[in-house]
């Protein structure tokens, strides 16, 4: 059961709580909303693949939006909570349980001291977020706790969780108990599908492609190949033929950029993407559709619909306003 893990909850209430990693899961990393301000030095933004889901978790708990949590991928970890702690699990439904009993998603619950959080069957989506009152602590690296495995930055020395890791929890800004039971209304919970239509705007090199390529992008579904990860999704479908070479002098690229290499098979860049790239950017997926795309797995299907940049901005503002209305940020 809990041998080897002293429980000081009632004796030393000021000690920051610790979470022990009994099993790391498939790929579990510490993430926040990303590392901004250093892209000109080649530092990737990284951060949660589904920023909406982690933000909901933090707001339910009364954390600042920038608090770090765990991004859990497909198969979850097994975690032992040394002290009682308020938590929320949002994003993909990976059947979370507390001491073997099903726990509600999108809701603040208390992990009793010495209890275990486990995950089970994947019911929908790919990436779940564990947020905790006070946030997962750790050094701020260039302003963020996000893990970027490729460059070894952030999180736990730049890597995914391993067995026997210990996670520290930061000081909570609020009395956690007040938030227990807080929940995202069911009407606002996303339904993660295996086939998603994402909206895109024309990218900087859109004019290098034929009208035919545009027609294809907007009318054919693309499948996520096995080479799809936090850096980007390699998609498979009708080839998107460029008018001229797709090799360009390297330019800035961002999450959502749809790059097309010489074989015409598009690559959708995601959270861990490089700051610059040398393939033509045909289109950019809009931010409002990022969360649904972040919950796709290899084999799932992605279709695109073109909107104007004005429409993309309007959708960004309305989705932001909707979250503000349902779950305003915590203020003191």
């Amino acid at each position, binding site marked *: 059961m809990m041998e080897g893990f002293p429980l000081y909850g009632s004796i030393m209430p000021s000690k920051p709580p610790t979470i022990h990693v009994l099993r790391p899961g498939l790929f579990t990393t510490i993430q926040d909303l990303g590392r901004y301000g250093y892209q000109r030095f080649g530092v990737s933004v990284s951060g949660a693949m589904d920023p909406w889901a982690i933000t909901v978790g933090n707001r339910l708990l009364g954390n600042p939006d920038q608090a770090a949590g765990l991004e859990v991928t497909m198969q979850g970890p097994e975690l032992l909570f040394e002290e009682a702690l308020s938590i929320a699990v949002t994003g993909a439904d990976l059947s979370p349980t507390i001491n073997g009993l099903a726990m509600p998603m999108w809701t603040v619950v208390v992990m009793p001291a010495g209890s275990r959080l486990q995950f089970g069957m994947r019911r929908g989506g790919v990436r779940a977020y564990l947020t905790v009152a006070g946030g997962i602590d750790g050094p701020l690296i260039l302003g963020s706790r996000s893990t970027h495995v490729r460059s070894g930055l952030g999180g736990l020395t730049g890597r995914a969780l391993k067995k026997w890791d210990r996670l520290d929890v930061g000081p909570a800004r609020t009395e956690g108990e007040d938030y227990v039971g807080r929940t995202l209304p069911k009407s606002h919970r996303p339904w993660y599908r295996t086939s998603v239509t994402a909206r895109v705007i024309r990218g900087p090199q859109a004019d290098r492609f034929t009208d035919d390529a545009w027609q294809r992008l907007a009318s054919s579904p693309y499948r996520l190949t096995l080479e799809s990860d936090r850096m980007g999704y390699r998609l498979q479908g009708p080839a998107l033929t460029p008018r001229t070479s797709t090799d360009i002098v390297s330019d*800035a690229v*961002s999450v959502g950029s749809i790059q097309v290499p010489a074989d015409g098979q598009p690559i959708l860049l995601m959270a861990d993407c*490089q700051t610059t790239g040398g393939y033509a950017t045909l289109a950019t997926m809009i931010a409002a559709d990022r969360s649904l795309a972040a919950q796709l797995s290899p084999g799932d299907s992605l279709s695109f619909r073109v909107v104007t940049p004005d429409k993309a901005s309007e959708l960004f503002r309305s989705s932001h306003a909707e979250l503000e209305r349902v779950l305003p940020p915590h203020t003191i």
Partner: protein
Amino acid sequence: MKPPVDVPPRIVPLSESALTVEFGETIAPHTNDLVLAFAAAVEQAALPGFREVVPTYRSATIYFNPLLADARTMTERLRALMTNAHTAPPPRPVTYTIPVWYGGAAGPDLSFVAARAGLTPEQVGTLHASVVYRVYMLGFSPGFPYLGAVPDRIATPRLPTPRKHVAAGSVGIAGAQTGIYPHASPGGWRIIGRTPVVLFSLTRSAPFLLAPGDRVQFVPIEEMEFHHLLRDHS
């Protein structure tokens, strides 16, 4: 004489929170000068909603918070800055001297580059170190500088298949570009040597040694000196 501008600057959306300002389509010092002067002007202007600017060879991408600025207003403000940036004197570049051990275990592709150029490996090293390079941009990984341009004779295309492991400090050539891998990583550039200089370290007050616009002068060193300096740096 004023250097020519390839095309009039074009402003295109990269996303709802980023605009890319294109100053040209080629790798050219005068284009990069315009990019860097403009990027500096954007940094100083502190426009409402501004987040960060990423200068590249021929463009600058401006990231902003779309809740605080809309693309149309941002575009107008950037156009206004452009006029001023063109008249500002370019900042005085800083030149860094970077020692390189060419060939041997440090430069697995040096003999290929030499054979292709009809030179000896030593001549390739000497030629590579004979010009002062401009840091056009950083990208690929934290602190990776894109330097140019290498003398025509030693310009060499990338490896057909990238290597799985390139040692930290490796100096490579890709076409007319040359660069330094700050960390061990996969890579497809032709590796001709290695420097003991640490380009990126979180334990320094200034984590990044190089910034866009800086200059780099390589200096050939022997294997012994490389190991000696590597010890000093770590």
